């Protein structure tokens, strides 16, 4: 199993890395929500090009980014095959009585472009900031502390439990177990899952006690002071401007 290391390249240097985390999260989120609802395929394409441009500016390694963006494409690719057959509209081809429509093709490409633009932006936003910094930014943005703490702890324990899971999985494979979709395989796997849950439950006790002994009271305290510079204001104004423009251009 792989670790979900989203911030492996957060120590690099680029204009996006230097962007103030608060302004970054707000303007990227705004842009994502805006691009996801565009209805014109040309606008969606421009949005996709723009998000790839941001990715290029951030200088993240292409392999790292493409591996993650590819997943979304594979997930949505079936739409491109199915929708031309199911959506009614202008016909472009007729395969033994089944009509292939242009409208279906356009609609499926629109969906894929919107999704790819969103995932590219989200990836750039998260990969250019250290994860703990992102969490501190969420506190600064007044997201409820309970949720931010749950996000932070869950993220941290995903790594621990991945290790634990891999250990148990290896020892089961050493004894000849392989997961197949039959009753025996699934119920053995269920027992292993039960063990993971029990182990994690026991761990919660120990973690809580050690945290309390270090002064944890459920209220977070951060020592980071963020400061916005003129560059941050310009960049976020640009991004928010683009986000508004893709919807407002038809009224101008």
């Amino acid at each position, binding site marked *: 199993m792989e670790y979900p290391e989203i911030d492996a390249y957060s120590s690099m240097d680029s204009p996006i890395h230097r962007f103030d985390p608060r302004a970054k999260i707000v303007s990227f989120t705004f842009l994502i929500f805006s691009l996801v609802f565009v209805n014109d395929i040309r606008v969606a394409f421009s949005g996709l090009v723009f998000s790839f441009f941001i990715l290029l500016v951030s200088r993240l390694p292409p392999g790292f980014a493409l591996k993650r963006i590819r997943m979304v494409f594979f997930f949505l690719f079936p739409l491109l095959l199915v929708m031309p057959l199911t959506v009614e509209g202008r016909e472009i081809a007729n395969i033994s009585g089944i009509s292939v429509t242009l409208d279906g093709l356009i609609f499926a490409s629109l969906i894929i472009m*919107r999704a790819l633009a969103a995932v590219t932006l989200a990836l750039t936003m998260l990969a250019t900031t250290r994860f703990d910094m992102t969490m501190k930014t969420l506190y600064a943005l007044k997201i409820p502390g*309970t949720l931010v*703490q749950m996000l932070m702890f869950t993220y941290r324990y995903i790594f621990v*439990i991945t290790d634990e899971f891999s250990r148990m999985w290896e020892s089961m494979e050493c004894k000849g177990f392989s997961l*197949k979709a039959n009753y025996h395989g699934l119920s053995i796997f269920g027992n292993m899952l*039960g063990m993971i849950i*029990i182990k994690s439950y026991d761990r919660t006790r120990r973690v809580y006690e050690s945290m309390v002994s270090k002064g944890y009271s459920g209220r977070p305290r951060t020592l980071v002071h963020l400061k916005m510079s003129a560059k941050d204001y310009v960049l976020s104004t640009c991004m928010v401007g683009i986000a508004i423009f893709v919807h407002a251009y038809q009224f101008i």
Partner: protein
Amino acid sequence: MHISDGVLSFQVIATGWIIALILNAIILWRCKSRHDMAEEIPKISIMTGAFFVASLVHVSIGPTSVHLLLTGLLGVVLGIMAFPAMLVGLTLQAFLFQHGGITTIGINNVMMGIPALLAYLIFRYGYRKGINASVLGIICGALGVILSGIFLALMLITTGEEFTEIAYAIVVAHIPVMIIEGIITGSVVTFILKVRPELLPLDREV
């Protein structure tokens, strides 16, 4: 199964966020007034982490493979806190693995969180009535998956008629996952009841 960005209409996404935020606020407020949050936060987070890791496992059936949803099991183990736990899990999944989408976190939370809550209620009610726990586990596991599938199909149909055929296909595709999850959930619940029965929130009040 979750919806990615760019598929659903604005109305569906907005409704999803509103329902998810209201339900989360109510549940967290209720939990805050009954328990010490300093103790609950690490507990729920670590359990969410465990479910997160477990849901990455792929089971191969024939030529394809499915990954586990564990909706029903999450409800049975965490009780009503399954709903905020699902929010945290989905957020991390969207950002760390690019599964699902960012704008659809709200609707995905509703789609998978409500079946989890129902699974919890059914399990508690059935257990008090004296129904065999492994049978209940199988029912809750299966129900969690198929309800999520049906919710997903309904959302696609409300978004546009273009999706009708795809929606039917999705419900059919959920049937094998439903069987697999039913068996796994039944076996997990039996195991936990044998080894550590106090872990299940059966005697606790809601």
